[in-house]
């Protein structure tokens, strides 16, 4: 399988006033096409920073980030935006739907930005996707008329509507109850299998990790290992980070 994301010796520094904080300290990572990969680590370990670099919403201080074969360091703001539009789908922790648009319009939005399809084709595409996520009957609802799970399904449909190569999900189930969270992951997994779309998501929930092909561990801004979900869950069970699990389980 060919690599869709390649990260070499990436350092990301933020300056907070006079002090410089290193969020990533020399990360190397390769993600292949069609993978369903989880990035795990405690809060502040650099998960989100890594996702931001892969998602081209941020750039590395040093090192190489290649997405779909393109070196993001050499791209302009406009090119990066186009790359995001055409290659990457985003699923956010707090869904981030446009509240004044309907379910249909939210999903249609990236297609309008692309400006490639006719109105008829867009309708077909959007309705097809909403059917897949089980919201065919909610086309005209506004986001505030939906439950959290339903909103995240809309967000998934929006992320997939442009047929991206990569879908990035930042703690996609963090704001959902465990049952809904599992349903969402089932959905993502089935889409991954059906369409072959690469999914990269961050989490610190071991139940979420189980769905992944592989779990990339990150701690203190460094990748500490890449393991199978079973090993990862075992690690979790050993008590590396159980607080949130307990909270969620209760």
């Amino acid at each position, binding site marked *: 399988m060919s690599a869709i994301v390649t990260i070499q010796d990436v350092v990301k520094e933020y300056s907070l006033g006079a002090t410089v904080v290193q969020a990533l300290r020399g990360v190397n990572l390769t993600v292949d096409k069609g993978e369903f990969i989880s990035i795990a680590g405690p809060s502040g370990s650099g998960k*989100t920073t890594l*996702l*931001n670099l892969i*998602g081209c*919403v*941020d750039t590395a201080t040093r090192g190489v980030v290649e997405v779909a074969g393109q070196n993001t360091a050499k791209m302009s*703001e*406009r090119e990066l*935006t*186009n790359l*995001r*539009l*055409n290659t990457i*789908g*985003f699923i*956010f*922790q*707090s869904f*981030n739907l*446009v*509240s*004044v*648009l309907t379910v249909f*319009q939210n999903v249609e*939005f*990236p297609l*309008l*930005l*692309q*400006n490639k399809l006719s*109105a008829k084709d867009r309708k077909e595409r959007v309705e097809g996707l909403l059917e897949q996520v089980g919201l065919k009957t909610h086309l005209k609802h506004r986001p505030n008329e939906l439950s959290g799970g339903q909103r995240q399904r809309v967000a998934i449909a*929006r*992320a997939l509507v*442009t047929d991206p190569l990569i879908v990035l999900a*930042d703690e996609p189930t963090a704001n959902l109850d465990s049952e809904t969270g599992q349903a969402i992951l089932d959905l993502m997994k089935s889409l991954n299998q059906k369409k072959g779309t690469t999914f990269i998501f961050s989490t610190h929930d071991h139940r979420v990790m189980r769905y992944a092909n592989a779990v990339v561990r990150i701690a203190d801004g460094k990748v500490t290992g890449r393991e199978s979900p079973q090993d990862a869950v075992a690690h979790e069970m050993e008590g590396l980070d159980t607080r949130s699990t307990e909270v969620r389980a209760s």
Partner: protein
Amino acid sequence: MDRVVLLVRIAIRNLLASPINLLIGGLILLGTMVFVLLGGMLDSLNQSMQKSVVGSLAGHLQIYSAKSKDELALFGQMGNFPELPAINDFPKIQEALSKVENVKVVVPMGISAAIITSGNIVDGTLEKLRNLYKARDGQPGDPKLEGVPREELALRIASEIAHVRQIIKVLRGDVEKAMADMMNAKSVEPRNIEALQRVEQDAFWADFEKDPYTNLEFLENRIAPIVTDTSLVFLRYVGTDLDKFQKSFDRMRIVKGSPVPQGQRGFLIADLMHEDQMKLKTARRLDKIKDARANGRLIATDDELKRFVKENTHQTRELVLQLDGIKTAALVKTLQDALPSKKDSIDALLSELLATTDENFDQRFTQFYELVVPQVQLYRVKVGDMLTIKAFTKSGYIQNVNVRVYGTFAFTGLEKSPLAGATSLMDLMSFRELFGYLTSDKAEELKEIQRNTGARTVSRENAEDELFGDGAEVIAEATPGIIDPDAALAGTGRKLREEDLIRRVYTQQQLDDGVVLHAAVMLEDPTRMDETIERITQVSNEQGLGIQVVSWQKASGLLGQIINVFRALLFVAVGIIFIAAMLIMYLSVLMATLQRTQMFGTMRAIGAQRGLILSMVLVESLVLGLLFGGLGMLAGAGAISLIATQGIAAPNDVMYFFFSGPRLIPQLSTWPLVVALVIILVVTVGSTLLPALMAMRVSPLRAMQADE
């Protein structure tokens, strides 16, 4: 296209989400409506005022001497009358201007004001008496009295003497009143009282026949000056080429009398002036009551009308002064029958007639005009009268000119306007003479005198040498100005000269050839006014005409500026509304932007370019502005067409001029719509640009941060 639809859709949805947008929209709607409505009304007002000013006096353009320090102000400026240097070479200017494209006609003018005296009642009565005696004694006098039998002359003489004695009685009453009032006592001269006492006695009248001419002279010299009735009227007038004026100002029409015959001297009085200032005050008040009643006002409830009635019943003096013995006796009888009344004094009967109420007004009005008016002189100056106009000439002494009144005139639609009806018209020749400018016939007269007397012209530089130098003979020792040309030309000679002047017909060349102060320029196409002003200025510079050109608006002085003042006020008022809208809009858009950073971040993350975010925020404001602005324009236009169905009635006579008639019909004009649109664009974009730029710079990273 779909993207635009999406932007507009998002904009409308966002607008609906926030109630403050209703307030902003309301302000924009109000501002636009006021602007379109008042802008349109001002435009209509400007147009109708233009019609009034252009059509009544100014023409489209006015030219006057470039050397003038004062600005031309046809309808008066605060304070003084403008002092305009004379334009000496009018024919040259006229010729040059007539070649300028778009110039239709140039009408020469000279605006000025004068005081006219129309003689007093005593003068008139004594003159009549003198003519009657002359006719009786077979001396030449009033041709109308030739062939009247001696018996009738004697009867008429008796009647006039009764008239004079009636006047004296009225005067005596005045003096007694003045004496009773201690403050005024000093103002009554003892010699006047003496004179009055003398003529009051029957003895004076018993001996009157013995030497009527000497006694008449006493009355003329001693009694006539006491009568305060002498009518001095302040008169604004324009000296002009009357034919050209009437042809060019086509709203002008003759109300009473006839136009001045072509090329002749003459005077036309503004009809409103004639009615207001020269008509019997009693009659004028009755007219006004009649008008007011026609407009639904009642004597019983209206204070002004009550005052008019009171003044009419108390001020019968002006009527009684005019009645001679025969007329008095006849009128007493007529009124006794008509009212009916048993009173026997003419004063009491007139008071009773004029004590009008809402019930009897129409009847009394008719009775007054049918019974009283034929016995008196309704106007102090009538059509056909000779008018003596006095004015200060440029050299400072008072000049008199006698002109015949041919008629009165008004401008159609402006009959009631005091502004349009304040200026009378005089022929150009009389005007030049009055101002001491050399007229062509005076110039010839002067040459004739020079030839006859052998006088020669002495230039100022050589004067001293010529007059007082060695061997020079002293030609004359006289102070200029001491000789009054009118006194010199007294009696028959003067009369002959006057009659000659009245009949004289001047050629167009004579009319053109002489001094004018300013001139009206009529245009073929008034919309090209600015262009024509430029062209005329250019021609004047090239040919050294020495004139300056102003638009009707500038020429009308303060009056022309009124619209500009109104317009400025409108802009200030609307400006305040829009500035308020702009501030609120700025704050609200700023708030909305800060609240929506995550949305902008998300949009940026999923692939929206910065420009899209910028236009999203701008479109939101534009939609708000254009939507409510459009509604405001519709409301303004609707209001105008609603008002136009009825028109706005002129609230008073002064407004007749501004409305160019009794009603102003407002019309929707384009510029307020266009300007309103521009203002809306400026306000919306201006107030939104900063927040929109902020929104544009929101990083896509913002999408990744959880909502706080």
